[in-house]
């Protein structure tokens, strides 16, 4: 473009800027600022409107013993999102089950009305009718047969306030110690193991120890599937410190084993040989920590005290070369693992049902603790023996409250007259109220029901009709008893044998505290109303107490009131958590006890000076639960399981959980995504075994033991090692506990779910 013959004067007006034009320009500038601000305001509105969540609430996952902190996102009174809470101990990590918690709030099949069985069928009834019937049946039984003719079977999934109230009602009101629950089936051996060793229950360490360990000893645990955030934490440790060693002891080549550095596929039922053999190697090769032993450890042969020399002598029978054949692990691997355990900077053991659900569960727990004690792998960050808990509130709700047949709150025992007297004073009941007789533990309870000595039982928040070993026997037993079941969902195996079914609130439909595996108490606040006529289990227990004439005993009737009573009861014990108030729990991501005052920050590592408020200054480590303040290492002889393989039953059955399902699936299997991911339960067989048996993938097969038979679909997988069959217990259509033996640990009374001799054969349908 070029211009021609333009008179510049016509176009050159630069000096002619008027004030009006300046003002207009400034005005437009202001208008632009306004437009910009309006645009910003518009953006804020848009973003606010498109918020999928109106408010976030701190809460706790409903499922396993990891006890993950979660954030619950609410909109218009509904749960629309659940995230891991980055500020909680789990650092924002949860698993697929926790991610599906929004669906839990509207699963199908919720119980919305009390039901009474009439003419064989459960029909809707009013609360008054149902509870009136329950109270009259219980009263009649107590009157005619004595207090021990009734029982309470509770759960590690009830809130602490609920288990505490049930325990108080039955032991101090009704005066029976027939109070037990499903933690007997999972954690009793861990509890007895800790108490025998340290004088006090509960893991001494914390999840944060996984951030410091150099050697992880995973024993009878599959945290990849069963405590996923904890295994993620272990993997994180390894990512940042690749020299970290992960050792996995498991008869199956689980996902945990596949992600470990060393997998020891022990023969089911023989792993005490491994622990004793490791101890032998440690003692013979000078790997023990004599300084730690001298200062903090005492030895006991099960009857009387002895010394290290005696311990060493005892272990000679467990030299690696002597045990390797029965154990299924080479002497070389035993020595290697023993060395790694002893000589790593910090070794953390994690174990769970593979150890606890055994007839030698207590002994296994003792030995795991003992390995840490003889090597000094204790009390430092990363060095700790950690028993993983299966349920979200087995620790806080049942073990700590003493809601088991032999215990009273805070580690007390019913057989100890001083303990009974203390609790009678704390509960303000007359001396002699609490029975000195140990009540029925889980298996014994259902055997007593079978025999007819227990006439009425209240079962809350658990499903023994699926979870008991040799379950067919005990399902039949429940028919003989007046069985009352309080549950959130209908149609469980247990309810099929119940005379009264009571609808219970679920998760955030009620308020309460749970105590997860690392002694952390966390609060779940009520965010929703339960459906229909459902009530919290606490409300049901308070109602029952009133109707049984014990209303004056149960003075605390709301969750916060019960909590206040309970934390003040704890003040006189080494389980003191008096400083953990609801107010603190509402603002903090849980607190670990001991926590004796509201200023105390909680205790990450127990028995350690500077962390545990009960350890004297200068003591270093102090096991104040024992009279001499020392931990006890026991000489524990290996006894083979009565379930030995034979020509008739040549394989071992073991059971367990899978990632997408929790326990008997009454909750998780109603969530479509979890149901689809898990599919129906399969009978997992090693391909070599299947070849010998002529079984192909998806063939119908029968698993048989001397206790029962089940049929299902085979799945060939080398996750099952040779000779091992695995079935998960979430699917009631494949009720594997029909087949499982009901042998149990004589000390803990915990059944041996993990070892049953079985046969497997192909069937036509």
């Amino acid at each position, binding site marked *: 473009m070029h211009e021609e013959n333009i008179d510049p004067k016509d176009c050159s*007006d630069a000096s002619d*800027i008027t004030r009006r*034009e300046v003002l*207009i*320009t400034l005005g*437009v*500038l202001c*208008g*632009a*600022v306004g*437009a*910009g*601000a309006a*645009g*910003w305001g518009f953006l804020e509105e848009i973003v606010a409107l498109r918020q999928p969540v109106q408010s976030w609430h701190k809460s706790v996952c409903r499922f396993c013993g990891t006890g993950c902190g979660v954030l619950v996102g609410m909109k218009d009174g509904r749960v629309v999102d659940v995230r891991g809470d980055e500020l909680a101990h789990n650092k924002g990590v949860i698993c697929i089950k926790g991610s599906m918690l929004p669906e839990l709030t509207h699963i199908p099949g919720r119980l919305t009305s009390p039901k009474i069985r009439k003419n064989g069928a459960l029909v809707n009834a009013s609360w008054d009718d149902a509870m009136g019937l329950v109270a009259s049946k219980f009263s009649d039984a107590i009157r005619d047969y004595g207090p021990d003719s009734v029982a309470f079977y509770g759960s590690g999934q009830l809130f602490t306030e609920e288990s505490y109230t049930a325990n108080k009602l039955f032991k101090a009101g009704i005066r029976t110690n027939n109070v037990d629950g499903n933690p007997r089936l999972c954690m009793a051996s861990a509890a007895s193991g800790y108490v025998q060793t340290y004088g006090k229950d509960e893991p001494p360490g914390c999840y944060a120890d996984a951030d410091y360990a150099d050697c992880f000893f995973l024993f009878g645990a599959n945290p990849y599937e069963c405590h996923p955030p904890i295994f993620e934490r272990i993997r994180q440790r390894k990512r940042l410190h690749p020299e970290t060693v992960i050792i996995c002891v498991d008869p199956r080549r689980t996902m945990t084993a596949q992600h470990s550095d060393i997998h020891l596929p022990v023969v089911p039922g023989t792993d005490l040989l491994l622990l004793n053999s490791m101890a032998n190697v440690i003692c013979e090769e000078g790997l023990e920590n004599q300084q730690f032993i001298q200062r903090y450890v005492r030895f006991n042969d099960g009857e009387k005290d002895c010394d290290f020399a005696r311990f060493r002598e005892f272990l000679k029978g467990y030299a690696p070369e002597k045990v390797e054949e029965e154990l299924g692990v080479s002497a070389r691997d035993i020595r290697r693992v023993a060395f790694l355990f002893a000589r790593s900077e910090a070794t953390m053991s994690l174990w769970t049902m593979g150890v606890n659900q055994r007839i030698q569960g207590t002994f296994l727990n003792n030995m795991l603790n003992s390995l840490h004690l003889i090597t000094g792998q204790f009390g430092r960050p990363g060095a700790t023996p950690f028993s993983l808990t299966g349920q979200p509130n087995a620790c806080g709700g049942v073990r700590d409250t003493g809601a088991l047949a032999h215990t009273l709150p805070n580690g007390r025992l019913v057989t100890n007259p001083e303990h009974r007297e203390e609790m009678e004073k704390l509960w303000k009941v007359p001396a002699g109220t609490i029975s000195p007789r140990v009540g029925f533990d889980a298996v014994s309870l259902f055997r007593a029901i079978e025999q007819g000595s227990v006439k009425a039982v209240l079962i809350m928040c658990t499903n023994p009709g699926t979870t008991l070993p040799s379950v067919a026997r005990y399902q039949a037993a429940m028919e003989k008893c007046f069985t009352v079941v309080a549950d959130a969902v209908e149609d469980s195996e247990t309810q099929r044998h119940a005379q009264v079914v009571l609808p219970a609130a679920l998760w955030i439909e009620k308020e309460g505290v749970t105590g997860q595996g690392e002694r952390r108490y966390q609060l779940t606040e009520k965010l929703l109303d339960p459906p229909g006529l459902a009530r919290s289990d606490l409300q049901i227990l308070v109602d029952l107490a009133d109707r049984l004439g014990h209303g004056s005993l149960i003075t605390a009737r709301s969750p916060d009131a019960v909590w206040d009573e309970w934390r003040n009861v704890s003040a006189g014990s080494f389980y003191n958590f008096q400083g953990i108030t609801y107010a603190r729990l509402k603002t903090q991501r849980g607190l670990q006890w001991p926590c004796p005052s509201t200023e105390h920050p909680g205790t990450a590592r127990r028995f350690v000076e500077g962390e545990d408020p009960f350890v004297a200054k200068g003591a270093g480590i102090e096991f104040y639960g024992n009279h001499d303040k020392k931990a006890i290492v026991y000489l524990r002889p290996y006894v083979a399981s009565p379930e030995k393989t034979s020509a008739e039953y040549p394989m071992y059955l073991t059971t367990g959980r899978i990632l997408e399902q929790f326990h008997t699936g009454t909750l998780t299997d109603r969530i479509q995504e979890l149901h689809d991911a898990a599919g129906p339960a399969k009978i997992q067989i090693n391909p070599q075994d299947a070849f010998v048996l002529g079984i192909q993938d998806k063939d119908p097969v029968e698993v048989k033991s001397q206790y029962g038979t089940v049929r299902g679909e085979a799945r060939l997988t080398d996750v099952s090692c040779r000779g091992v069959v695995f079935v998960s217990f979430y699917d009631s259509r494949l009720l594997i506990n029909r087949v499982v033996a009901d042998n149990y640990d004589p000390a803990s009374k915990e059944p041996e779910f993990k070892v049953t001799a079985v046969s497997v054969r192909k069937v036509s349908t």
Partner: protein
Amino acid sequence: MRLLRWECWCACIAFVMTLVFVLIPGPYEMAVFTFLAQPLFAIAAVSYLSKVLADLRNRGVV
């Protein structure tokens, strides 16, 4: 008759803001461009177009 004085000044100011942002890509420069320069351009353009429309109407074209 001068029709487009303030529109041009505003557009000039907006061009300067834009040029600064092009040369110095910082958050403040980006904000000035996004929330000031763009509205300025828009206001100037709308005013210009409205004047064009009025002119066309006067001429009977529209």
